[in-house]
């Protein structure tokens, strides 16, 4: 049966949960404590439950049996059922990630639509303030998860081994593990609806997150699990890029998307632990009666904000660095020109990685932290505009004098540049202490980060999806629908979020259910724009579904691109390359006569032995 692994995972997960929770009850009874307190039971039962789920869904068969000296069991499945199992093929895992996160993106987008209906007019419209806070928090955390994992987990998994000429990731089973940690995250977040919700936003600032409904516990467990998944993913990417590059794939010949994933993975690997630590401290405060953030007993609420932003500011670069890489990967192929200032760009990426660790407190200018920290953190923050400027130099230098083919991926990449520019310029106003005193926690900030994350990262994600769609599915998407999707989304995106800058200046703070009546007309305009923006995804989804089912067969290299993934058939065979490719030149050397990036399949046949994986 196709869903047998998932069913077994659920059963083993439930058993693990009962075992863990039951053990906790037993221990509490023995210690003479009140035995049936739901929050500690859920927390303690969750971790064995998670282990049970992972083992049940497939980690037992392909992995854990080894520890007990048993032979591992691997089943070769090549039809659609492989998408529902613990598969180690990086291309399958990439598609699993991508589909999961597009679905989550649409779900969180639906929550945004509900929020905009509520904000159509001042006063209560369709929901209560409590439900609004929960929906708003859900929108935030799911979108953050999408932003962190959709490009790295989805497109990164699919494309990085292909781009560097590898057969798979360095640790294929850890790769599968990091994907199968995601379904529990989604389930936990959705089940907060049945546990009173959580109303502390995705930032979960204590003390609020220590006194609200039990849904907060599910949120914390979900985000800790998600963090674990992204740490494992980052570890895998770093090891893969360090060790599995094809012969001749030197650091100076590495495609820029691979560089961006490499840089972002450093941040994921390290900073994510701070998020896990912060959320764990909240759990300890809530359930073990500890006093990290409880001011009444001597704790420090500001400590959480420091720990949280030590992760969450670098996290925006986990989101945006792969987006830079993706846009800059696409620009040379569609401009038929070399990537401009390539080494400077790579240096810029690492400049961003370095600076991202020393800017976190710019989120705390109004938090009451000591005054002497304001100047240094403002300075480091504004220095980030220097490496980011190199991204723009590279992008503009690449398209200047090129032969631009405005296909859908290229349009999205250019849209990314425009949106991210607005996001970047408005970021200066937030980084500057005097202006931030007014703008902090207003819709100006909401507009700013939607321009960087949605206008930047999500636009790049769509650019990448359209770019690699023929490679992933073996079929071509519909170009007219693709362009329609771009223009629809680009225009309504801008009309939705530009007015928010004005709203912020004129006294609308963020995360509110109600606002001064004078702001009603602008909010109505934003809401209508937002509904149009939401409807643009109908075009996207129908294009994807119809093209995957019935689109024309795609050629191996529909974009005449030079990088390695386009030198194998679409979709790529199970082991990617017939033999390790020989890399002999730069990936983006368009216009140089007789320049070659790589020799693929010189020793064997071309792609004949590839298994047809289109199901």
């Amino acid at each position, binding site marked *: 049966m196709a869903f047998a692994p998932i069913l077994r995972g659920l059963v083993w997960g439930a058993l693990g949960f009962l075992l863990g929770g039951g053990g906790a009850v037993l221990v509490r009874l023995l210690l003479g404590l009140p035995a049936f307190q739901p929050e500690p039971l859920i927390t303690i039962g969750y971790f064995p439950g998670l282990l049970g789920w992972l083992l049940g869904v497939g980690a037992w068969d392909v992995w854990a049996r080894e*520890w007990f*000296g048993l032979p591992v*069991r*691997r*089943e*070769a*499945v090549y039809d659609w059922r492989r998408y529902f199992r613990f598969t*180690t093929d990086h291309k399958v895992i990439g598609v699993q990630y991508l589909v999961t996160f597009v679905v989550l993106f649409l779900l969180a987008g639906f929550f945004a639509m509900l929020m905009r209906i509520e904000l159509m007019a001042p006063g209560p419209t369709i929901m209560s303030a409590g439900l609004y806070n929960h929906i708003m928090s859900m929108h935030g955390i799911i979108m953050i998860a999408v932003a962190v994992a959709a490009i790295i987990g989805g497109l990164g998994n699919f494309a990085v081994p292909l781009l560097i000429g*590898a*057969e*798979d990731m*360095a*640790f*294929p*089973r*850890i790769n599968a593990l990091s994907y199968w940690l995601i379904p529990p995250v989604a389930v936990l977040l959705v089940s907060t609806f049945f546990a009173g919700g959580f109303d502390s936003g995705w930032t979960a600032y204590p003390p609020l997150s220590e006194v609200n409904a039990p849904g907060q516990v599910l949120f914390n467990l979900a985000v800790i699990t998600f963090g674990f998944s992204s*740490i494992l993913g*980052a*570890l*895998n990417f*770093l*090891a893969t890029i*360090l*060790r*599995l590059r094809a012969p001749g794939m030197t650091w100076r010949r590495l495609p820029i998307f691979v560089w961006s994933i490499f840089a972002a993975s450093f941040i994921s*690997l*390290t*900073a*994510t*632990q*701070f998020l*896990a*630590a*912060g959320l764990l*401290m909240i759990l*300890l405060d809530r359930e*073990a*009666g*500890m*006093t*990290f953030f409880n001011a009444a*007993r*001597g*704790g*420090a609420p500001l*400590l959480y904000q*420091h*720990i949280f932003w*030590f992760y969450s500011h670098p996290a925006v670069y986990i989101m945006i660095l792969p987006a830079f890489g993706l846009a800059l990967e696409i620009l040379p192929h569609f401009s038929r020109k070399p990537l401009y200032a390539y080494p400077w760009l790579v240096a810029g990426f690492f400049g961003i990685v370095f600076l991202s660790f020393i800017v976190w407190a710019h989120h705390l200018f109004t938090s009451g932290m000591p005054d002497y920290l304001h100047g240094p953190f403002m300075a480091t923050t504004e220095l980030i505009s220097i490496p980011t400027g190199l991204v723009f130099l590279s992008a503009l230098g690449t398209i200047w004098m090129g032969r631009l083919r405005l296909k859908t991926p290229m349009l999205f990449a250019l849209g990314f540049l425009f949106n991210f520019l607005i996001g970047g310029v408005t970021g200066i106003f937030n980084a500057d202490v005097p202006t931030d005193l007014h703008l902090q926690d207003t819709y100006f900030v909401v507009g700013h980060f939607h321009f960087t994350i949605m206008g930047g990262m999500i636009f790049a994600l769509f650019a990448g999806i359209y770019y690699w769609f023929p490679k992933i599915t073996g079929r071509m998407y519909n170009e007219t629908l693709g362009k329609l999707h771009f223009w629809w989304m680009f225009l309504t995106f801008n009309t939705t979020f530009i007015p928010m800058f004005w709203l912020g200046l004129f006294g609308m703070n963020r995360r509110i259910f109600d606002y001064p009546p004078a702001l009603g007309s602008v909010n109505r305009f934003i809401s209508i724009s937002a509904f149009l923006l939401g409807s643009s995804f109908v075009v996207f989804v129908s294009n994807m579904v119809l093209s995957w089912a019935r689109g024309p067969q795609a050629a191996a290299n529909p974009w005449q691109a030079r990088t390695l993934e386009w030198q194998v058939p679409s979709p790529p065979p199970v*082991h990617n390359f017939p033999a390790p490719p020989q890399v002999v030149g730069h990936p983006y050397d368009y216009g140089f006569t007789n320049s070659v990036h790589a020799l693929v399949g010189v020793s064997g046949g071309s792609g004949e032995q590839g298994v047809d994986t289109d199901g």
Partner: protein
Amino acid sequence: MQTVRVHVPYDHTHTRRIGLWLFFISEGFLFLALISSRYYLFGLSRPEELNQALGLLITTILLLSSLTAYRAETSILHGDQGMFLRNTLATILLGSLFLVGVALEWAEAFRFFPPHTRFGTIFFTLTGMHGFHVLSGVVLLVFLYFHGRRGRFGVTNTWPVEGVIKYWHFVDVVWVFIYPTLYLVSS
């Protein structure tokens, strides 16, 4: 559906080593977060109630277990099965002894600085998180011991030994930083 052997590519020792070190870097940041919280919440002051003798004792035990772990790894690299098993068993026992020591510490800590005080919060979280790592290390060593008794490791198959013992040393490195953070720092 037939069961087939699927080739896992490139999964050899050097890559695994890099992966393990990356994992240590990541875990290091977790402990960095917890250790820096100590300074934020409690500054540089040191409670007088700490049992310094016990602290020094369990530190010594853990360092000694690192030595036995090192001897186990060295002996298997030279193919000495008997010495490998003896030293692995010694490491397991010392690790368990360390956990007993932490349990004694906790019993005292409940009296002097329970979890709802500032120092108690720090103390229980740091020793608890480290103790969890020690416990998982002991479990891994037990796996190693039983596989070793069946002669599964030799000069050619040493990665499981190397991996587990590296993890054990890493847990020791973490304690090297936690010990002064909890017991020694003063203003």
